[in-house]
């Protein structure tokens, strides 16, 4: 019995460790005009809040936010938190599974700087209201018309924001080994 408890704790710890420290989460938002923003990130989900975010990837209407550059070279996506008290975007930032709790921008330039982003996704609940917007200045599509950059915007959260934890391939072996240990322990106990 003592061994059984120990094995269960180990398995749970391995499984939980896989979700908290190395989880990948998918997110999506469907704008009121039908445009779709999707993405994924690595981060730690505690309750409704995701922190420690890295490896951001975003697609607007299936077009990836990639290829951006500035005078310094290629750019990369970062998550910034909106600080309404001093009207600035700061790092580090968090993201919520609940749309009305979001205050972030994902962009390939520092919003407080002077370089214009090549693409960004904003989800802000400010005293002025709720704003959801995305733009990709490197692409156009059927929504934006032949001469325009991709752009989508809502002036209210329409409730379509979703964040879905995805088991990462790297965590699966750990989970499986934990379950295997648990199974082995049960077999020995039975014998």
């Amino acid at each position, binding site marked *: 019995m003592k061994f059984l408890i120990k094995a269960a704790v180990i398995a749970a710890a391995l499984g939980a460790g896989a979700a908290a420290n190395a989880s990948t989460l998918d997110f999506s938002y469907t704008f009121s*005009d039908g445009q779709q923003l999707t993405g994924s990130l690595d981060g730690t989900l505690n309750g409704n809040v995701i922190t420690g975010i890295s490896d951001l990837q975003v697609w607007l209407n299936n077009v990836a936010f990639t290829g951006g550059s500035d005078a310094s070279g290629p750019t990369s996506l970062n998550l910034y938190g909106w600080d309404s008290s001093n*009207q*600035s*975007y700061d790092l580090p930032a968090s993201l919520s599974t609940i749309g009305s709790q979001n205050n972030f*921008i994902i*962009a390939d*330039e520092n*919003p*407080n*700087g*002077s*370089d*214009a*982003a090549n693409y*960004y996704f*904003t989800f*802000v609940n*400010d005293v*002025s209201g709720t*704003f*959801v*917007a995305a*733009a990709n*200045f490197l692409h156009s599509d059927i*929504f*934006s*018309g032949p*001469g*325009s*950059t*991709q*752009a*989508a*915007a*809502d*002036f209210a959260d329409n409730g379509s924001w979703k964040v879905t934890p995805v088991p990462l391939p790297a965590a699966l072996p750990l989970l499986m080994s934990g379950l295997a240990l648990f199974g082995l322990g049960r077999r020995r106990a039975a014998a």
Partner: protein
Amino acid sequence: MKLNSHTLRPSLVAAAVASALALCSTNAFAAQSLVKGVVGGAYFAAPVFADTAAASAPSSTVASVFQGAKVCFDLNDNGVCDATEPFTFTGTDGGFTLASKTLAPLVAEIGTGASNSGHGVTSRNVFRVKQEQVAAATVNPLLPAAVDITPLSTEVARAVEHDGVAYAEAVARLAERLDVSPSDVLKAPTKIKDATELASVLKESVIDQGRFELAAKFVDRGDTVGKLRGNFDCPNVASFDPANAGACLASDMATVGIKDAQNYAQNLEGIPRYDYVFVIIEENESLVSVKNNANIPYINGLLNNGSQFYSYYSTGHPSEPNYLALGSADDWGQTGDEAIPYPAITGVRANLWNALDAKGLSWRVYEGSLYPSPAGTQANVGAASWKTATGGLWFDNPSNANIKGADGSTYSSGLRAMKHNPASWFASAAVQPNYALNSRSISGTGTDLNGSPIPYMAGAVPVSTGNWDAALQAYADANNVTSWWTGNTKPWTQDQFKLDLESGDVGNYNFIVPDQDDDMHNTGVTSRADYWAQNVIAKIQSSSLWNDPTKRVAIVLTFDEGESATTACCGWNPQRSGNGASQPLVVDSNGAVSVTSGVSGVTAHDGTAYTSPYSNGNHGHGVTMFGLLTNQQVLASAPHGHYDTDYYSHFSFVRTLQDMFGLADPGQPGTYMNRSKYTENFIQQNATLLPEFANSANPHFDAVRAMNHVYQFPANATRVVAAGTAVLPVTTGPDADQVNLWAVK
């Protein structure tokens, strides 16, 4: 929403701009912008004009959005969506979302492939948004900004660029002018919840859409600056004077872009747009008998404080032809008084009343000593009272003997002359549903809008010409008479004009007709007419309309006919021979000019033949007074105290009104009604169709032009003076200055 008329309210807008600018100063993505909005405006279903009520229909207006409009960030601010600028097209909801790495103005190009809430767009239009509006709507450059592109946002852009006002002030002034909150004035009409505000925004949207549609035509046709500002010295200008050919400036030969064109469209032929015009028509006096006459000190003071046209000609004799001319730029061959039944002008002839209705503008005819009909209604068009050849008995059940003046004399319905109401002549105006609504009463007595008493008369006044306003009101009260212009929902008032000024329900164009005791017809140049004019003008000047500088208000005081000379100018018929070939010319939409039948021979409304030969009319009756006073002269910095000695006539005035209210296109002669299209160029190009102008001694004198003071007499010009008649001042060469007397700054 009623707002303080004296106080501009830039606070909200200014705060928004300041806030946005402050945020922008954080350099968040520099001036990057993402906007979401709709291209919105109004859909105006034009009225249907016919000779019968059954075939007529009023106009209607609804808030609308434009589908398929091209929207772009106008990075180079030229008013055009250039190929390299980010653009998109509005969807079925009129919406668009557009992003730019650079904060910039917005342009919506509404082509003929677009639609207006499902209705095909027949003429290209361009709406714009100033960059400041995008900035003001931007909480943060990384957040979407709600920006609608509308006719009113375009008007704000035009005002900033041409009226010398900052963006926040332009918004505040527009909101003030329309009595709409600054937060709503730039919204697409489909988003405005307040019914009163929506009505005001819709009306302005219809007006501005029409003006800016015209601007797009200016650009597409390649109209030159000279043409648009009415420079007489430039070839192909409507009123081109060959005598001055060669004096056209090179800059006037340049074509215009859409931004300048939109400003010209709000100032057609140099005539600025006014919101309210009050025209008071007096009777039968020449300029020399009025000017400096000690019996009418108020009127002379008005002339001196405002501006004066010294060569303004009546166009016929007796009264009736002149009132017809004032209502339609043609007297239709009429050479007598009330010789034909009303409304005799059939066949849907062009007239000012229909033209105003067709553009969504309002009009009123205010008449003194209106009989309070016990039946509570005007007689239906075609009823016996309309058919009488002597006119006057316009109302049901008149019983004059019941109405006694304070002096015991009996009211005469002839005090109110039907011939003085030019709307009543045109069947297509008289059968419109709004005709009764627009025909209202005015009193020359009482107090101003502040309650201050105004003197009615001074000195000896003939017993038979008592003050009838009180007697008529007492009769109405005693008999519970209701007013037809309210649909008989309210008691009759002898001074609806005063109530309308208080409520702001006057027309954009207001034709004011005193009774024949008050208009100098029966009493001559006496203090009676002077006090009546003072009383009425005092009411106007104490109104919130007049005292709001954002609203442009003009008062015109003139006479139907002048100096007993058989002389006129400016579109008149100088041949006087009754040449049967002299018939009205019309221009179709393709520019083809043809002779149309005159009213002569057309069966009048009651079946009586109209017998006046067209070619007998439009002969003139000499010079009279034309004084102009505007609230822009009193409240703002508009020039005053100037005079203009160029030749004008009733036809010129009607052309001027068409410019002022945006009723015509200076590039298309056929859009000006009747003889007001007879400019020098038009006469020259259609000489074979206009034999009445053959051998003209002075083409400039004989032709119509807007009253814009653009023409400069050559230095050696000899003034054309009616034979045997002195005209003040006698001028040769240019005037002391060429100030446009209608100018607002």
